[in-house]
């Protein structure tokens, strides 16, 4: 006997179509180009850029190993690439730490203002986003260069006798990156603090906890989700940073982004560039998974312990 069709099931059957726009965007805009990069990394370099459709593992080989230029039989680790990798990761970690140290008091300050004032302070935090990144980076360059504003003022005040060489140093890169990414740390931290129940802080004081203990055992654990989100938001774009190290670092040392650009441009080795780009992607994914697992495991432990 035929049953009447279930109207509910019918509706559900078509419901997935509603997600079609999101799927199309994800497949075409995200996976598509990535797939091309992945394929390119297994091909041979074309003449004057581009790729030749001959499968090859040379691109991946050259990421990790190098044949000695003057003795091709002699294969060793590619220390140049690995140095660039390590510098990129290390600078990104430092940037994240600086942003966390500066971002925490900033977010705390905002979260402890009266509610009607917070909107104003948050609004001030977003002001840098109104101007193009490149222009802001050049503005920093103008501030700290040899005959720039900072040196001129310090010289006039007789604090220093000779202009400080601040530009084109690791200090300049860190300054620029921390400046650019700081809002990305402040905003999630503020979101976490906004939800913070200040009665818990008061309870801590009532139980004779010192200020330090309250900060360490009450506040920090409660705003940890903000730190996690902020660290991810700062660390990932730092690893791919291109403009800031390029303009403020003076180009004497490369970051990963610059190394990849070199292979696609003057180096004319697209497969190597593609392999480096894929490796960057894998690195970030692995770092994220490890980080989130560690955070979750710690939470689990606390819940059971």
């Amino acid at each position, binding site marked *: 006997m035929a049953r009447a069709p279930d109207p509910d099931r019918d509706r559900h059957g078509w419901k997935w179509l509603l997600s079609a726009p999101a799927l199309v965007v994800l497949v075409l805009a995200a996976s598509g180009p990535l797939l091309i990069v992945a394929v390119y990394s297994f091909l041979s370099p074309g003449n*004057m850029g581009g790729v030749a459709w001959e499968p090859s593992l040379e691109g991946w080989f050259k990421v990790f190993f*190098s044949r000695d230029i003057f003795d091709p039989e002699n294969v060793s680790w590619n*220390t*140049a690439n690995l140095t660039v990798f390590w510098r990129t990761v290390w600078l990104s970690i430092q940037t994240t730490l600086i942003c966390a140290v500066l971002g925490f008091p900033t977010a705390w300050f905002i979260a402890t203002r009266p509610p009607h004032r917070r909107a104003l302070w948050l609004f001030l935090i977003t002001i840098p986003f109104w101007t193009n990144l490149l222009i802001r980076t050049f503005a920093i360059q103008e501030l700290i260069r040899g005959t720039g504003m900072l040196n001129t003022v310090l010289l006039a005040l007789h604090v220093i006798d000779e202009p400080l060489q601040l530009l084109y140093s690791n200090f300049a890169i860190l300054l620029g990156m921390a400046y650019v990414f700081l809002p990305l740390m402040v905003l999630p931290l503020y979101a976490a603090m906004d939800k913070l129940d200040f009665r818990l802080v008061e309870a801590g004081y009532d139980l004779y906890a010192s200020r330090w203990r309250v900060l360490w055992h009450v506040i920090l654990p409660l705003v940890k989700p903000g730190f996690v989100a902020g660290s991810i938001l700062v660390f990932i774009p730092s690893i791919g940073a291109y403009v800031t190290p390029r303009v403020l670092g*003076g*180009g004497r*040392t490369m970051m990963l982004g610059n*190394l990849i650009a070199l292979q696609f441009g*003057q*180096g004319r080795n697209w497969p190597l560039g593609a392999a480096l780009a894929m490796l960057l992607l894998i690195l970030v994914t692995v770092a994220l998974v490890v980080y989130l697992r560690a955070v979750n495991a710690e939470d689990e432990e606390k819940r059971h312990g």
Partner: protein
Amino acid sequence: MKKTLISTLALIVASAGAAQADGVLNIYNWGNYTSPELIEQFTRDTGIAVTITDFDSNDTALARVRQGGHGFDIVVPTHSYVQTWIQEGLLQPLDPAIVTDRDNIAPQWRDVDFDPGREYTVPWQWGTTGVLVNTSVYHGDINTADIILNPPPELDGRINVIPEMSDVMAIAIYAAGGDNVCTSDMDVLRRARDMLMAAKPHWLSIDYGTIDNYAAGDILAGIYWNGASMRARLQNPDLAYGYPTTGYPVWMDNAAVLADAQNPENAMIFINYILQPEHAAMLSNFARYANGITGSEEFMDEGMRNAPEIVIPPELVAAGRFSPACPQEIQEIRTQIWTELLQ
């Protein structure tokens, strides 16, 4: 009344028709390189409206045009890339019926290796890559690569080198005794690499460096292009441009018509237009490089005609050499050295 209306309509139709016949022209060129004054005059003279799109490197331009669907009519590649453009069929031969004045090209640029007989390209601008140094601090010989590769103490830590692999490698290879930038002579390459590695700690930056940095004295010396050097000297007369006697790169950018140009006829008209001495001079007056067109000197700005950056001293002309594009396997060695230098 009716009559006026009709004649007005006729006028509108006529002018619309004229505008269509005049058409447009899309130029794909290096940024900040095309004299706006020249473009204005070209549009006034021919009625052709010009759009300019910038590229920042030969590799970018080549990659984009290879993809097709770009909509450009004219491109301006550097000499070392011209053969690739021709061999891949990306350019079309110049139409002798429209491009009638190729004889205006100076004899030394008329029959060049990268485009024998100038079938595809005409000169846009040419120049050299040399050494710019601040003579208020440095009093030695300016025509030497030692300023960069073995810098004296007064320049230590105040040197900038442009991040152009081919230019820097060329100067180092010449200084290391090589006579061909694409050399596969491992002894020369090893010496060049060692010189660069030893020199790098004395450099401040490997950046394009702005003219202002040189003028303000933030940078005291560097590898730089002659036209930019001239612009810097006009702001700070202490700056002097030297030609390393061991060898220095010469380059020429060339205008060509793309094979899939939408407006090939207008493109040919433009090519012939810039072959006229007074128009070529306008290009030079803007970009501050020489143009390779006979008779353009008299239309150039006073300061340019005998500028030491533009007019190479006769005894140093021979040290200037065109750098070809290197074969892939050589290019990889050069990239490896460059990566080692910048690691």
